[in-house]
Structures are given as structure tokens and as C-alpha cells.
């Protein structure tokens, strides 16, 4: 009686069917929640005239540009602070905690003074947001390396570099992946917000335009694409994680 | 009155296990459902005030049997009678003490001990006197307002015992209660348990995998064999009482009984439960899965 996969598929089908039927029969106001087919039609139309592809690419460039920049800065920073400089880590700990609280949209106004209103300002906003979860997770991952494992590996005559690359990094990989996935989630949330504020392209702008012109199906089509991208990115990172951290499966 | 038509004739029989069997249907994707016989043909009669220990290899139906006794699981066949009446579910005539203490960390020692009384709807004014009594009985006076995280493992287990005794059950069911404490504390707790048993005259069913513990505590030791779980033999422990605060553990008689049980456990090549099957069984009986 227990077919989990069937149940899940059935639940999804019921959900989509309700989305179609409820607005069609006026059970919810189609002005607010248009039926699925109308949203799909709008989506198709946006694909055909090329708008959707353009804005998706712009948004992806910003999101991944920011995430990548955050990784480029965050990994070395985390390695340095988590690896060999405990007093430095102590000294900058609260400062980084404060920086992590600095909402990048608030900083946006300040950043624009320096970088202007172009693409680099938006990438910087995303990068700032992603930097902190990544840095913190690298520090945590390195610091939580099992001391027993280190002792055992050290007794086998592994040098400092060997210890680091062969023991510390692999054992901290799961924590680091968690941080990166968290950062990617943040990146998408804030990207849309920043694109709704004074951008002239991107998926967030598409949605904001839909709102200003009362194109409800556009809002939903845009939101669906944004959600799909977020889910796909998270799925991709999970996939990479499973490939890299093969041994974690055994312990869970 | 204990004149049931099921052979429970004796007046002082407290617990009667009659032909208990437990079968689980394991789900298998390929070949349909498979059956797993966890318990088979379990028969046992326990006198009022008796101390019976169940020993056997780990994970072979002892805990399942205790769950059946507690009324948390219904047996597939057979029945359990207490005072001649068949049990149908959990009730406050049986108290339970588990290995993991299962204390409620958000309650003080006193409020843990009073838990069963709250469920029994005993008025607050009476609860205090009762919990005072049982906290003193297990030797924890002065710790009434402490939280479990402030206690050592041995002290926690004392709280669990006091909690099970507080609502005055006639039967105490204990599932490897001392397995998680260190060896020294364990001996102390065994002494304490015998003293408490002397004072309260409860009927105790005690599951353990330690032969020493079973011999030291029990009047009779039921030896489990596995696959399916059933009693291989029930051994009378004819050692003098009171045994607590004595060095009976080092006596020759103790050694003999111990050796006899050890031989019985070894006599057939040990058939450990298949681990895979066991995990499924645990899932199937876990009460949390049904709530």
C-alpha cells in the first residue's frame, strides 16, 4: 500500500491541477492567481520573443558572478583564519559577525557611490552577501577536523601540507558545501530584491514590471522561472557535493 | 480472583504469559511480504513479589517481550494475564524503566517523579508527599529541585526508578536499566534495587544481557534463545537472601549458577539475529511510528 514515489507524483499533479481548476471556476480570483495554463502561455510568449532568455542570462550572470567572487575571496580568507592564526581570528570575529549583518541592499546606496549603478555594483552586492556564510563555513569546517584523525595521520608521518590537503580539507568539505548552498540561496533572494530596485533588466525587473503594469501572469511566470533556477542551483550543488563527499553517505 | 480458564489457578500468580508469539510482516520489494518470527511459544508464570530476569543475546526479542508486557505492543498470538485478567494496553499497574533513562529534561527531579501521578490525576497536595517518599527511597533527598542535566548517570537512573514506583504499580518492568552506567555505579544500583524491592514487595521483570546481573538479582533467570526468540530454559537461582550489601558475588554457589547459565547460552552455536531484519522490526514496533 506504500508507494512513496507514486504518492509524491500524485501530490504534485493534484497541486498543479488545483492551480488550473480553482481560478478557472472562480474559486480563487483569477486576477490574483491566474490559472496555470495562462501562466504557461505567458511564459511561452516571453520565451518566443526572447525576453525571458535575456533576463535570465543577465540574472544568472549576476548571481553566479557574485557567488564566484565570494568563493574566490571567502575560501582563502577562511583558510587563513581557520588554519593558522587563532589570535587574528579572535580579533576579527565580532567584526565579521557585524559585517555579516550588514544588509547588502542598505549598502547598495553606498556601493553605488563608488561603483556606479552598473553590473559591477550588483555583483558586488551579491558577493558581499555570499562572502560571510562561505567564510564562516570554511573556518568551522577546518576547525572541526577530528583531532583523533589528525593525530593518526600525523603519526603516519604526514607533513603539515599533507595533513592539510589530505585530512583537513576532505573532512571539512561537507561543512563548506553547506555554507556554499546557503550562500547560493541568499544570492537568489537578494538578487531579485536588488533587481526590483532601480534595475532595467533581470528577472527581478521583469516581475517588478509585471506588477507596475498589472500583468499578473508575467509576475507568476517570472516567479516560476526564479524558483526553478533556485531549486536547480541547489540541486546542482547537492549533486556536486555527493560526488565530492562520497564517504558522507556512509555516515548518514 | 484468579480462576481463569487458562490454567491460572494459583492464587499468588501475578503474571501469566501464555503461548506468546510475535510475527512481523517485512515488506520486500521483490518477493512480496516476508514473515519474521520474533517470538515463539513464550510461556512463563510469575508469582507475586518474584524477581525474574530475562537474559539472552542482544536484540533477540527480550525488549519486544517487555513491550508486550507493558501493553505497548499486542502479541500476534497468545495473551498476557495480570491477576488473571488479560491485558489490553498500557496501564498504571505496571511501571517501566528503560536503559536510556528517558527522563524529561525540562522537569526537575520532583516533577519527573510526579509525572505518572499527574497522569493519574492525583491532586497536587498529595503528589508532593508521595514524591518526597520515593525520592528518599532512592536516596536522592536534597536533589528534588535539580534538573536531569545536573545529575550523573547513576542518579538519573534512580530518578527513573522513583518515577516508575511513584504511581504504585504492582509490577516493575525494567529493560537493561543499568547498561549505560559504569561498572561500579552498576553494582551500587543493583544493591539499591534489591533493597527497594525488599521494601516495596514489587514483582519485577528485569531484562539484561549480563549473566552476573541476572544471577545476583533474580529468583529465576529465563534464558532466551534467538531466531525465533523463545525460552530455552528457566533456571532457579537458589542463593540466600538478602543478597544486597553482601559479597555473594564472590561465593562459590554464585559461580556455579553463573557457569550453568553461561553454558546454556553457549550450548547451541549462537544464532545472532540477522541485523537487517532486526532494524526493520525495531521500526515496526516503535510506538512513535504509530502516533
Amino acid at each position, binding site marked *: 500500500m506504500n508507494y512513496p514515489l507514486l504518492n509524491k507524483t500524485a501530490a504534485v499533479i493534484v497541486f498543479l491541477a488545483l492551480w488550473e481548476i480553482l481560478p478557472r471556476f472562480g474559486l480563487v480570483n483569477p486576477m490574483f492567481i491566474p490559472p496555470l495554463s495562462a501562466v504557461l502561455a505567458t511564459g511561452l510568449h516571453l520565451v518566443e520573443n526572447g525576453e525571458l532568455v535575456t533576463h535570465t542570462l543577465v540574472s544568472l550572470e549576476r548571481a553566479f558572478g557574485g557567488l564566484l567572487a565570494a568563493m574566490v575571496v571567502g575560501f582563502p580568507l577562511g583558510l587563513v583564519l581557520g588554519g593558522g592564526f587563532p589570535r587574528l581570528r*579572535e580579533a576579527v570575529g565580532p567584526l565579521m559577525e557585524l559585517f555579516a549583518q550588514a544588509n547588502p541592499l542598505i549598502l547598495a*546606496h553606498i556601493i553605488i557611490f563608488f561603483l556606479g549603478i552598473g553590473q559591477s555594483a550588483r555583483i558586488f552586492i551579491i558577493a558581499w552577501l555570499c562572502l560571510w556564510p562561505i567564510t564562516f563555513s570554511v573556518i568551522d569546517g577546518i576547525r572541526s577536523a577530528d583531532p583523533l584523525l589528525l593525530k593518526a595521520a600525523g603519526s603516519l608521518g604526514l607533513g603539515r601540507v599533507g595533513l592539510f590537503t589530505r585530512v583537513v580539507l576532505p573532512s571539512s568539505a561537507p561543512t563548506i558545501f553547506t555554507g556554499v548552498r546557503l550562500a547560493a540561496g541568499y544570492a537568489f533572494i537578494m538578487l*531579485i530584491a536588488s533587481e526590483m530596485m532601480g534595475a532595467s533588466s533581470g528577472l527581478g525587473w521583469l516581475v517588478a514590471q509585471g*506588477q507596475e503594469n498589472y500583468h499578473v501572469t508575467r509576475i507568476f511566470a517570472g516567479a516560476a522561472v526564479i524558483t526553478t533556477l533556485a531549486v536547480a542551483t541547489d540541486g546542482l550543488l547537492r549533486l556536486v557535493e555527493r560526488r565530492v563527499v562520497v564517504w558522507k553517505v556512509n555516515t548518514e | 480472583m484468579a480462576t481463569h480458564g487458562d490454567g491460572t489457578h494459583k492464587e499468588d500468580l501475578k503474571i501469566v504469559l501464555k503461548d506468546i508469539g510475535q510475527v512481523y510482516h517485512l515488506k520486500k520489494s521483490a518477493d512480496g511480504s516476508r514473515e519474521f518470527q520474533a517470538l515463539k511459544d513464550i510461556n512463563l508464570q510469575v508469582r507475586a513479589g518474584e524477581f525474574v530476569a530475562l537474559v539472552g543475546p542482544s536484540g533477540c526479542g527480550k525488549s519486544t517481550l517487555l513491550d508486550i508486557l507493558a501493553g505497548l505492543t499486542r502479541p500476534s498470538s497468545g495473551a498476557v494475564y495480570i491477576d488473571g485478567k488479560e491485558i489490553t494496553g498500557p496501564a498504571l499497574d505496571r511501571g517501566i524503566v528503560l536503559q536510556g533513562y528517558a527522563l524529561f529534561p525540562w522537569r526537575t527531579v520532583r516533577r519527573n517523579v510526579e509525572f505518572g501521578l499527574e497522569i493519574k490525576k492525583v491532586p497536587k497536595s498529595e503528589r508532593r508527599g508521595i514524591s518526597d517518599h520515593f525520592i528518599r527511597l532512592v536516596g536522592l533527598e536534597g536533589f528534588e529541585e535539580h534538573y536531569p542535566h545536573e545529575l550523573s548517570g547513576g542518579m538519573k537512573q534512580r530518578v527513573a526508578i522513583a518515577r516508575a514506583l511513584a504511581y504504585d504499580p504492582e509490577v516493575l518492568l525494567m529493560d537493561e536499566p543499568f547498561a549505560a552506567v559504569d561498572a561500579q555505579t552498576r553494582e551500587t544500583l543493583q544493591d539499591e534495587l534489591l533493597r527497594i524491592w525488599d521494601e516495596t514487595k514489587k514483582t519485577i521483570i528485569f531484562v539484561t544481557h549480563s549473566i552476573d546481573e541476572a544471577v545476583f538479582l533474580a529468583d529465576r533467570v529465563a534464558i532466551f534463545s534467538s531466531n525465533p526468540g523463545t525460552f530455552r530454559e528457566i533456571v532457579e537461582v537458589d542463593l540466600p537472601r538478602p543478597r544486597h550489601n553482601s559479597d555473594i558475588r564472590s561465593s562459590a554457589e554464585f559461580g556455579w549458577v553463573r557457569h550453568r547459565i553461561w553454558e546454556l547460552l553457549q550450548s547451541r552455536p549462537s544464532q545472532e539475529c540477522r541485523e537487517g531484519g532486526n532494524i526493520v522490526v525495531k521500526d515496526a514496533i516503535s510506538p512513535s511510528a504509530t502516533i
Partner: protein
Amino acid sequence: MSVTGESLRRFLLRWSGVAVFLAAWEVAPRLDWIDPYFVPPFSTVLREAGVMFRDGTLGMHLVVSLWRAVAGLLTAILIGMPVGFLLGRRLVGVEQALRPILTVLSQVNPFSLLPVFLLFFGIGETAKVAVVSWVSLWPVMSFTITATRNVDPAQIRTALSMGISRLDLYCKVVLPAALPTIFTGMRVGAGLTFLILVAAEMLGSSAGLGYLVHNSAMNYLIPRIYAGATFIVVLGFLLNRLLLHVERRLSGVWEAGAFVTGPAGPAGAARLPGPAVSVAALGAVLIFIVFGGLEVSRINREAASYPSEALKHFGHIGQPVDR
């Protein structure tokens, strides 16, 4: 508690980074290393914050933002906890079937929903509270599901063996046992809430801390931007620390409840606050919701009586001024 030399040294070390940063912020504009028009020295920003504090601006926007955050979080808890309980313990099969949908819904971007909420609820407070609740609903719900499912089975067996009623089992065992994990969900939700709320207030609002910063930027009141931003950062920091503290205390007591052998902890090391404290906290939240709500609607009415730039829902960031 006495401050020993060691802990004082530690304290100084920990905050030295912040001190150096603030010193640089003060000195760099003063020595014209960076343009003091765009980055005013820290003391100027502090003075501006003092002015806003005295004339009540800061307090007013703080009340509005806090009220929205608390109302949103409360809504999320009121929906997420009961649903999480049901899906976690009663409707396990339903939860498994719904999991893909719940996962996707939790990834739906709150800002892409903002226009829908605005259409639904109008420009008032409801849309903002709805966005905030949407964001914190998912962590609260998923942590509640996990928490109720992972209650120590031995605790449940013990309670069941006493013939406990289903209601009592939920109220006296499952709920308290699940509390620390549920609280973690609330903390995660609250952290996100604050981030999103400030952004939402910049997008379409006439009051609140996010609006304060946004409006200052629109009017080129640069020290005000920094003062507002600093205030938001410090507030978020303190909020995060407070919630972490409560969470650690809860889980410190809870985790030791089962299956830990070892010596007794120091007596009275971590006591739970009595029921009086919880009741007082709950009362304070309710009073804040009621009176804060009255205050917020008054502030909104006042803001509406003189139309301003900020009433445009999607304000645009001004071009940088010419140097």
C-alpha cells in the same frame, strides 16, 4: 562575577578588530584618504544618529520595523507549528507525499511574491507582514517536523506505558521535547526575516528602518544613510546574539536529559526560567503587538497625509551626484 585579567584581555582582543575598523572609518575621511562627502567620519555618523534618536525618528522607525518582524514571525509560528506537528506525527504519509511541493514552495523567492501580496492585500501592512511570514514559515515548519519526529522514543514509551492520553502526550512530552529544535527554526526564520524585512521596506513602504535608509539616500542625506545602516547592523547583531543565547541555554538543558553518562554538572549551572518568565515574555509580545499596531497605523496615517517620494512603491535609486 569578577572580571579577571585573562577574560579582560580576551575581551579586548575580540573587539580590537571592530575598534581598528572604527578608527579607520574616523581617520580616513578626516585625512582626506577618501572623500568625506561619500564617507563621513564615524563621529559625524554617530552625531547624526544622536540627533535622530533625540527627535524620535529612530524610535519611530524602529517600532514600525520591529512590529512588522514580530507580527510576521508570530503568524509564521501560529501556522507553521501546528501544521508541522500534524505533518510530523499524525500525517507522516501526507508529509512524504507533499515533500517535493513543500521544498519548491520554500524556495519561492519572497520578493517575487511581493507584487502578488501587494495586489492581494493592498499597500498596507498586511503585504509586508505576509512577506515576512512567508520567509520564516518554512524554517519554522520544517524544524517542527524534524523536532516532533525525533523525540526520544524511550520518553514516549515511558509516557505511553503509563496510559497517557493523546492530548497529554502532545502537551507534556512531545511539545517540550521538541522545543529547542523548534526554537532553532524560529531563530533561523527570525534571521532571514530581518534581512528580508529591511529590503522589503526599501522597495515599498512609508516607514521602517529600511525606508529610513532608502529615503535618506533619495534625499542625499549621506550621514543619515550611514547612521541608519549602522543601527540596523547593530540591531541585527544583538538580535542574533540574544536568540543564540536562548537557544544554547535550552539545548544545554535538553540534550543532557537522556543517555549521557558522566559526572553531575555543577548544581544550578543552567536553570530554566520559571513559568512566570515565560508568561511575562508572552504578555510583553502581545502588548507590543496591540499597542505597536496602533502606533504603526498612526505613523502610516501621518505619512500618508504628506505625500512623499517614498510612497512610490518601486522607488529608484538616485543617480550618484556629480562631484
